[in-house]
């Protein structure tokens, strides 16, 4: 894509040292977020997805590589407040990410107080009400409530409203539906999608659920052991997966049309090999089709 991305990681690496051993949580990770588009980051637990989110939120500093905001390198000591107002996060757990002793109104007005200090009290309240309406909750009913009075789905809508309150350009959503009941998941995904369109947001959707990734994202990346092993347009990658690890993930996704006991996909016979080989460092990048890349699994 030719236009400058809002946010990009370029060759970012992050290693955690624990005792004598090192965990490579990010290895030469590069990707770009564009307005009005969703990029899905898919992987199992421990693959480095959340580390990528934390690098973007500047909770971790990269060991090497850089974070680019509107094309310019983000300085380690740069203006965090302006950055935070442009880049907002929606967390996985709607039960612990809201403060139990604050009303919803306080949750929504606090970011406004911090990021738009010149708003008057009445304007703040109006803005909080407006953002609630955006996430399809009734402001009059919800503003005075406390988190425990709301359902999981409603709370996740509050988390999204809180992120939207400061007019961000980028939303990082880390497993925003995995703790919700199946019947409300779709509503949250559709809401994120509508917001993306209406507000031209760039969304990084982090998930282990490849089916929901396909549902919302134009582009997808598959991550394993800190490396992005395959990436490109969602249709191309899922329609013609080239990396053995991507195929393994796809073969394990529950599919009502494939009963247990039917012929097993070949990848399920080689789980250990695929895991072991995919975890090795691979610097070679191969374009398998226009806009569809893999890091070939070392053999």
């Amino acid at each position, binding site marked *: 894509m030719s236009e400058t991305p809002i946010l990009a990681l370029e060759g970012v690496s992050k290693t955690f040292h624990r005792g004598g051993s090192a965990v490579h949580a990010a290895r030469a990770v590069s990707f770009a977020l564009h307005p009005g588009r969703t990029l899905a980051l898919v992987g199992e637990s421990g693959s480095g997805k959340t580390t990528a989110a934390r690098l973007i939120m500047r909770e971790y500093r990269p060991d090497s590589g850089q974070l680019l905001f509107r094309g310019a390198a983000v300085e380690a000591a740069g203006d965090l407040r302006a950055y935070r107002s442009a880049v907002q996060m929606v967390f996985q757990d709607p039960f612990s990410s809201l403060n139990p002793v604050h009303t919803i109104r306080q949750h929504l007005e606090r970011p406004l107080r911090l990021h738009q200090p010149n708003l008057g009290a009445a304007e703040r309240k109006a803005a909080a009400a407006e953002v609630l309406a955006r996430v399809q909750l009734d402001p009059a009913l919800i503003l005075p409530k406390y988190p425990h009075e709301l359902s999981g789905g409603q709370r996740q809508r509050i988390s999204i409203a809180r992120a939207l309150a400061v007019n961000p350009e980028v939303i990082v959503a880390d497993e925003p539906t995995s703790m919700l009941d199946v019947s409300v998941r779709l509503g949250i995904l559709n809401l994120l999608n509508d917001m993306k369109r209406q507000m031209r947001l760039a969304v990084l959707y982090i998930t282990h659920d490849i*089916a929901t990734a396909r*549902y*919302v994202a134009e582009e997808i990346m598959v991550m394993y052991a800190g490396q992005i092993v395959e990436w490109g347009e969602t249709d191309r990658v899922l329609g013609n997966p080239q990396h053995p690890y991507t195929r393994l993930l796809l073969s394990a996704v*529950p*599919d009502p049309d*494939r009963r247990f006991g039917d012929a*097993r996909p070949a990848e*399920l016979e080689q789980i250990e090999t695929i895991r072991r080989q995919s975890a090795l460092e691979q610097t070679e990048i191969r374009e398998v089709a226009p806009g569809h890349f893999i890091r070939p699994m070392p053999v």
Partner: protein
Amino acid sequence: MSDPLLSIRNLSIDYVGATSDFHAVKNVSFDIARGEFFGLAGESGCGKSTIAFAISRLHRPPAIIRKGSQIVLDGRDVLTLDDAELRQLRWREVAMVFQSAMNSLNPVLTIEDQFHDVLKTHTGMSRSAARARAAELLALVDIAADRLSAYPHQLSGGMRQRVVIAMCLALNPKLLIMDEPTTALDVVVQREILERIHKLRQELGFAVLFITHDLALMVQVSDRIGIMLEGELVEVNDAQAIYRSPQHDYTRKLWASMPRLGGERAGEGAAS
């Protein structure tokens, strides 16, 4: 169904409150055949776990099983058993893998000690016999016998889950209840574990009551499926029939709410 393994009739369970009771399970009846894989699906709070706990009488106040309810397991009415009889029932007749099973192991005991605990309590097995049996059971779930000396924290989540399953099979139960056994695990690990259960069931002949909210997974592994909504069992049918021609509105809604690899996308069709 002639001679079912488990027969539940008119089961009603209330959570008794100070001012009003919450009717968690409302007049539910269903059977599970010997060796059958039965799936129970529904959202959180629909009563599916409450039923699972009631079957092995693990429910605690304020949960009360109402009069007129019947749970018959292999010819015995579970609701009339005394403590000694219950001890005979649990593990031997029915064993349960809990939702957070990987955290249900005792962190300060080795795997071997925990197997010994079960085997000694229920069969009076000696230390060395228990060790041999434990190694045999671990082999069923593809874990090497040298892991017997490990503590739970030295195993991955998927391995701990398999240890719990192996433990549940220690006394050859006729019914294995699994309450969201793989929700905390990654898809690949989930697939490995359920394939293992699927195979063991064919070899050992136990029946499975499988509780989950993942309908796609449930259709993949189950013979029959029951769908619960607010304490009521609204539809029971063969897995394929529930999938291909759901009769109840709620079942259809559940299906429509799940993004699937071959399905619609955000902004397409009626979903958005």
